Structures are given as C-alpha cells and as structure tokens.
C-alpha cells in the first residue's frame, strides 16, 4: 500500500495533480448548486412581490 502511494517516488506530483482536479470539479459542482439555490430564491421573492 505505501509502495503504491509512493508512486515510484513521484507521489508529490501525481497526488497533487489528482487532488487539484478533484477540488476543481467539486468546487464547480458546489458552485452550480449554490447558484441554483440563489436563483430560485430570487425568483420566489419576485413572484411574491409581483402577486402582491
């Protein structure tokens, strides 16, 4: 296992490359989900305002 994680001595390059990619993808997913929530909230507010 530790030999696998060492990646032939290149662990310091391979794992950060995968880690950054995972972080970027997770960040994008979190961002689009938050954006949807904000947009829904805004529309709901405007629709109540319009119905008043």
């Amino acid at each position, binding site marked *: 296992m530790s030999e696998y994680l060492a990646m*032939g001595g290149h662990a310091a*390059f*391979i794992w950060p*490359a995968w880690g*950054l990619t995972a972080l*970027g993808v997770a960040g994008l997913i979190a961002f*689009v989900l938050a*954006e949807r929530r904000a947009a829904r909230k*805004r529309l709901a507010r405007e629709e109540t305002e*319009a119905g008043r």
Partner: protein
Amino acid sequence: MFSYLANPARFDRFARIAIPVTGFLALVLILPGAWFALFASPPDYQQGETIRIMYVHVPAAWLGLALYLAMGVASFVYFVWRHPVADVAAASIAPIGAVFAALCLASGALWGKPTWGAWWVWDARLTSMLIQLLLFLGYMALRGALEDEKQAAKSAAVLAMAGLVNLPIVKFSVDWWASLHQGASVMRLDGPTIDPSQLLPLLLMATGFTALAGWLVLYRMRSVIIDRRARALQAQREARA
C-alpha cells in the same frame, strides 16, 4: 438543433432530460476511469508512474478547448441571430471552461517538473494554452464590467469569437513549432499511438469529464434562465413603482 433549442421553453424541456442523463454518464464513466487510471493500468515505459497525471491533464485540456469552441459557437449564434439561449450558453460556459483550462495548466506543471525539470517553460503549447485561459477570464471580466446587459452580451460575444483563432494555434502548436510538449497520440489521422491499456482509462476519463462538463453547463444555463426571469420581474416592479 440551434434554432430548436433557441426557444427557452423547449430548451427547458431538453435540459430536464439531458441534465440527469449527463450526470449519470459522468458518474459511470469517471468512476471506472479513475480506477483504471490509478490502479489497473501499467506505468509508462518512459514516464513511469507520472503518466497517471495524463489521465486528468488530457481531459482538462480537451475540455478547456472544447468548451471554448462551444462558447465561441454560441457567441456566434447569439451575435448573428440574437437567440437569448445562445447567450445564456456562452455566459454559462465561461467559468467552467476557465476552471478546466486552469486545471490543465496546473496538472501540466506538476508533470513538467519531474519530467522536464521545470514547472513552466515559455513553450508554444504552454503559452497558447495560457492565452486560452486568459481569454476565458477576459470574457468573464468584460461581461462583469459592462453595466448594460445587452451591451455586455454583444461585446463579450465579439471577444469570444475573436478568441476562436487561438484554438488551432493550441492544437497545432506542437507541429508548427519545436515544442517541448509531445505531439498528439490520440487525435491523429492515422489513429491513436497509445497502448490500449492506457487508452482505455484516458477515454473513460475524457468522455466522463465531457459528460460532467455538459451537466455543469446545462445545470448553470437553467439557473441563469431562472435568474433572468427574476430580474425581468424585478425590472417590471421597479418600472411600476
């Protein structure tokens, strides 16, 4: 297809089906792709284990370019036919493309250091890819800087279309100039020159990331449409007051 989806109601019906489909595809392609890339594929005979960086680097690079192409085409459709959904698409793509272009450069640097002995060289391929990232960022900055939304959309569309010139430069930089970066080994006229044991994880990751990018873009597009509807209501309310 463009004129069909230009109708926001039809786009919404399309997106409601396409979002779960692309999301599902992303999962079932990326999970086995990552498993093959990290565990079930051999090290390269020259690069050793660092070839495993390629399985995230190449999909990120591919998406950096493909998303820019999509943004440029959407901008063209908006500029010529003024389809609002095309503008929503271009605006939605920009930050997603920027992230993938940045991931391409970052993973490339992490591969370059152990392989070439340098994080960065001002090489034709690296420099043109950096310009691609700056085009995404410039597009976002321009959109954000202009107050008038129509004006922002039009100006940003012009920038996006002009930036399309850089795509063939990135793609063919390794053929046109003496580059440190290796040439194409998958998208070649004479077929891939990469071993099947390494081509399989690469294709799974590349198609999976493409599905993921499709999911991200479509999901964002629906949010932007919802937000624009809210803003239109707000404008009506303010006009009445």
